[in-house]
């Protein structure tokens, strides 16, 4: 007998016992819809959590650090233990540095993060972009106020999510443009009422005037610089801790409330002017306590200027500690004439979180230190795997119950159809064919129940989502969130699972049907 005939027979048998088949199918529908809706909830939670991290660039960025200038100097001076990780090139320390230090697996980086190294990293497969981290602590003047601020260098164009959303304006147009983007805290600090007010305005980075030869600066300048560096060291933590807290961030500094245009001292300052072209929406919540906030692997600044401009500025107005390190390096010959020191740190952005571990391995092979939170992603996945398994198990139990229903229905059906089975055997049905009819019947119940159950789960998800939005999210002013994820593999898998369970449930009844003795069955009335 051909399969279409078996299928037709099975369908006919189900039609003959419509009510019973329908009720049995209902059991499967309940089971499948339970599994699918519960797991779609779990998967939805997971997706939303992962998406949240992904939105913050936490899963596609690697911090890479190279050998620092001071590290070079100390090794040249025979002090291998000193210095490493104690300073950045800008004299700044980040949390990441500490994390690196605490990790015993991490060794001292062998190479410096020079431009050439960055280009090499950018060429690795899976790397979308490499953005060296430069941030300057400097006085910024805008809207007639001058405040000490962290100014970050931004790669242009930039794939990071922190440059995605603007309250007004846009991203810096090109690496060469004298343009800047600022964030909301900048608006508050510098007294702009609305984001639109800031766009089109200029901001100036201030440095000691006449500093054409910063490395060979005069005594007055050096003194100024020294003082500046000291103040900077004090102030930058404050600035980092809470950029909104303006009073703290510039207390005790003579430039406070100064009107630069009228101040004769201002003429002694060099300035570089940038036009504000965009105001970023600040989306970082609950940043680290007492530390700088991070977005992805990058510290957040309230002002960004193009990377080349930031680099030029940093090279030109090195603080005194960096200057000493630089000169020592030069003097000891570790740093050749014409060589620059390279960056303390850069962020490598990968094309996909999945390739991140591979890229990180390559970075280690190339002799850099790196850090990412991909391990945390793995942990997160494990947690959700457990959650989803638990939810799936709950749904699975109801499907198990449904499978008992299927077995029961099939056994009932055999009792009813004993004679029919005997007849089929008498006219030449093989045991295999009898079994197949029952398997197909059960499979059909599973398939119909599975499809209807998946649809029911979809409906449950939709209704639950709307209810949650209406009664939980909306009253709190939260925008619509899809709590459920219903990927094709989930509902397709559930349908297949239902079919498989149904066929398993029919194993015993089918075997029993095939064992029916035709002689007895034909006598049966």
């Amino acid at each position: 007998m051909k399969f279409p005939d078996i299928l037709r027979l099975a369908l006919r048998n189900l039609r003959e016992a419509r009510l019973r088949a329908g009720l049995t199918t209902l059991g499967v529908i309940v089971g499948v819809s339970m599994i699918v809706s519960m797991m779609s909830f779990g998967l939805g939670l997971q997706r939303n959590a992962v998406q949240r991290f992904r939105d913050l660039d936490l899963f596609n960025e690697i911090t890479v650090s190279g050998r620092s200038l001071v590290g070079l100097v100390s090794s040249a001076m025979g002090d291998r233990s000193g210095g490493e990780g104690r300073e950045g090139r800008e004299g700044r320390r980040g949390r990441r540095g500490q994390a690196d230090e605490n990790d015993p697996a991490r060794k001292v980086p062998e190479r410096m993060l020079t431009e050439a190294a960055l280009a090499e990293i950018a060429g690795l497969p899976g790397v979308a972009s490499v953005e060296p981290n430069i941030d300057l602590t400097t006085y910024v003047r805008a809207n007639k106020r001058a405040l000490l601020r962290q100014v970050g260098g931004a790669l242009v164009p930039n794939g990071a999510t922190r440059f995605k959303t603007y309250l007004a304006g846009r991203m810096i147009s090109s690496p060469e443009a004298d343009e800047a983007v600022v964030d909301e805290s900048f608006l508050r600090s510098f007294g702009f009422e609305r984001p639109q007010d800031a766009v089109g305005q200029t901001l100036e980075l201030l440095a000691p005037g006449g500093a054409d030869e910063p490395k060979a600066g005069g005594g007055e300048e050096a003194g100024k610089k020294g003082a500046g560096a000291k103040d900077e060291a004090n102030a930058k933590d404050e600035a980092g801790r809470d950029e909104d807290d303006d009073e703290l961030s510039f207390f005790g500094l003579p430039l406070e409330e100064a009107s630069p245009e009228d101040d004769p001292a201002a003429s002694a300052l060099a300035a570089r002017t940038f036009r504000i072209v965009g105001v970023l929406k600040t989306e970082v919540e609950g940043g680290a306590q007492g530390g700088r906030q991070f977005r992805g692997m990058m510290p957040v600044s309230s002002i960004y200027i193009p990377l080349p401009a930031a680099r030029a500025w940093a090279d030109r107005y090195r603080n005194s500690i960096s200057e000493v390190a630089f000169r020592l390096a030069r003097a000891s010959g570790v740093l050749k004439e014409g060589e620059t020191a390279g960056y303390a740190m850069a962020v490598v952005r990968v094309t996909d979180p999945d390739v991140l571990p591979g890229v990180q391995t390559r970075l280690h092979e190339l002799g850099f230190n790196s850090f990412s939170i991909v391990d945390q992603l793995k942990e997160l996945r494990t947690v959700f795997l457990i959650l989803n398994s638990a939810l799936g198990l709950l749904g699975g139990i109801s499907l198990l119950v449904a499978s008992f229903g299927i077995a029961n229905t099939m056994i009932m059906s055999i009792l009813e159809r004993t004679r029919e089975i005997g007849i089929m055997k008498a006219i030449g049905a093989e045991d295999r064919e009898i079994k197949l009819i029952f398997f197909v019947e059960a499979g059909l119940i599973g398939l119909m129940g599975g499809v209807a159950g998946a649809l029911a789960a979809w409906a449950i998800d939709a209704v639950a989502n709307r209810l949650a939005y209406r009664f939980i999210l909306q009253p709190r002013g939260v925008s619509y969130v899809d709590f459920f994820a219903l990927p094709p593999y989930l509902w397709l898998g559930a349908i297949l699972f239902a079919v498989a369970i149904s066929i398993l449930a029919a194993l015993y009844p089918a075997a029993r049907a095939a064992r029916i003795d035709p002689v007895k069955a034909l006598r049966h009335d």
Partner: protein
Amino acid sequence: MNHSLIETREVSKHYRMGATTVVALDRVSVAVGQGEFVALLGTSGSGKSTLLNLIGGLDHPSEGEVIFDGRSLAPFTKREMARYRRHSVGMIFQNFNLITTMTAAENVELALAFGGLTGRERETRAGELLERVGLGERARHRPSELSGGEQQRVAIARALANRPRVLLADEPTGNLDSTRARELLSLLREMVAGDKLTVLLVTHDRDLAAQFADRTIQMRDGKVETMNAER
């Protein structure tokens, strides 16, 4: 009888009923030739139906063997046995044993489906068979809508569906009045004559047996009592 199509050699069948063993057949040896119409006569419990089931491949003898066309059925696997039932023998029963939820045509087509026919070919063949038993008009009726005689004719059509060489009829007229019984057996004779089919008819009606069978085998208590010669 040089060549017998069906032969039983010392066939016995025991049933265990609780502590006692019932002997349904006791060393029965019969032979039926190609194209013969043989009636198995006997009272109820004489073992004639049991013998028929053994020959029809529905049951296995406790002892002895059934030979069909020179081959013993004893070593057949379940699958080979199913094939044998499908292609070599056709059976009809006193209670017709049609599938009540199927129409006459569907009943015949079911047999054809097990025989491997599909689609149009199957429908055509089922139609022809029903036409031959005079039920062309009633093909779309369910057994409950047909008379006993009509139902048995559907059963004949189904039994002959896969062109068997033997037709085994177990009290086919038991549920019919004598007129219908005669009509049915006439039809049966007529249908097998052309194809030189061998017929084994189980009945307890001596008159019918005498009228239609080439020869009769009388059974009693699981044994062959008399085997009368050909007419």
